[in-house]
C-alpha cells in the first residue's frame, strides 16, 4: 500500500516510514492482557524485530496499549497518560473488553467502548489475544501509519469537546485538564 507514492509527498512518506518502524510502547499494563506482553517481547515472538519495544514514561512513548478492560479509576489515569504523550501517538485496544465490554458487559466499574473516550487506531480481538495476534495488530498499525491513516491523535484534537463530554459522563469530580492546542 505504501508503494503508492502518489498519495503522499516524499517527505510524508519518509516520515511515516520511520515512524512505523520505531514504535515505542508505553509500559503500562492497564489490564490482564499485559500478561501476554512479556511473551510477545521475548525470544520466541520477539516483537522488537518490528521495532516495537518498551518505553518507561509517556513522554518517550508513541504507542499506548490498552491491555483489556478499563475500570473508571484507570480511565482517568489513561486519559492523563494519553494527553501527556507527544505526537505522533497511537492507541491499540487490546482484547474483546475494549471493543464492547466483552465478558464485563454488565460490570458497573468497567467502560464498554474505548473509542468513545480516547481515539483507537487498531483493535485486537480475543480474550486474551495470542502473541501472534498482537503482532498482527502491530503490523496492521504499521500499515495504517505507512498509509498515513493512523490519525487518532489528530481526531482527538479536533473533537476534543466531544471526547470531553463522553469522559465527563463517567468521571465525576475529576479535573480534566483544558488544553488549547
Amino acid at each position, binding site marked *: 500500500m505504501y508503494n503508492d507514492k502518489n498519495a503522499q509527498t516524499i517527505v510524508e512518506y519518509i516520515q511515516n516510514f520511520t515512524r512505523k518502524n520505531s514504535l515505542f510502547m508505553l509500559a503500562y499494563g492497564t489490564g490482564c492482557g499485559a500478561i501476554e506482553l512479556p511473551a510477545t517481547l521475548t525470544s520466541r515472538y520477539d516483537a522488537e524485530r518490528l521495532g516495537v519495544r518498551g518505553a518507561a514514561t509517556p513522554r518517550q512513548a508513541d504507542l499506548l496499549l490498552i491491555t483489556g478492560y478499563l475500570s473508571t479509576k484507570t480511565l482517568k489515569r489513561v486519559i492523563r497518560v494519553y494527553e501527556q504523550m507527544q505526537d505522533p501517538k497511537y492507541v491499540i485496544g487490546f482484547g474483546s473488553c475494549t*471493543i464492547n*465490554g466483552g465478558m464485563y458487559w*454488565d*460490570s*458497573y*466499574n468497567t467502560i*464498554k*467502548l474505548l473509542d468513545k473516550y480516547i481515539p483507537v487506531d487498531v483493535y485486537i480481538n480475543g480474550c486474551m489475544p495470542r502473541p501472534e495476534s498482537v503482532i498482527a495488530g502491530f503490523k496492521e498499525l504499521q500499515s495504517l501509519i505507512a498509509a498515513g491513516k493512523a490519525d487518532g491523535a489528530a481526531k482527538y484534537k479536533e473533537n476534543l469537546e466531544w471526547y470531553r463530554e463522553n469522559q465527563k*459522563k463517567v468521571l465525576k*469530580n475529576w479535573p480534566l485538564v483544558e488544553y488549547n492546542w
Partner: protein
Amino acid sequence: METSLIKEELLAQQLQNAFENIVTEAVRKDTVFAYASKEQVSSILLYAKEKLGYKSLAHMSCIDWLESDEFELVYIIWSPETKLNLFVKTRIDRQNPEMENMDMIWRQLNTYQREIREMFGVEFPGFVGEKEFILEDWEDAPPMRRDFDTLEYVNDTFFEREGREDKQDVRERIAKRSGEEIPDFAKKYSRE
C-alpha cells in the same frame, strides 16, 4: 462418605463449653461452624486465638441476606496445630449495619474491613482506615448490596456498542460481503 469428625466435634464441644448461647456444628471434614451474636464474636475470636491456637485469620466475608433484612459476617480462622477451619458467623441488622472493629486482633482485618465498609456499607466504629479502598468517587449505593442493580447502572452510565440490540444476523452480512451462500440447514437459525 461419612468419615469420623473427632477433631471437629472436639472443637465444637470446646467452644460450646466456653460460651453460653452459641450454636456450634461440626459440618464436615476440617470445617466447624459457630453461630454467635454480634457482641460475642470478638471474645470467641480472641479465645480461639489465644487459648485454642487458631492463630491465622484466613478470611472475613459479608453476605447480604436481603430477604431477611440482615447482613451475615463470617470470620474464618485456621489453626496450624489442628488444621481446622473455624467459621464464626454472626448476623447484623441491615438497616443500621454496625460491627465491632477488630483490626487489633489481626492486622489484615484492616483490609477486609475497609473492603466490607466500602462494598456493603457496614460501619466499624473506631476503625481507622482510608475511606476509599477500591472505588473512587462512588456516589451510588454500596455496590455489593443485592438491591444495587449493576445492569441498570451500566445502561445509565456507559455506552453500548451498536449491533448488540439491533439483532442483525451477522452471517448474512458476511455472506453478502464474501459472496458465499448460507447453507439451508443454517438458515433456520436465522434471527428473522
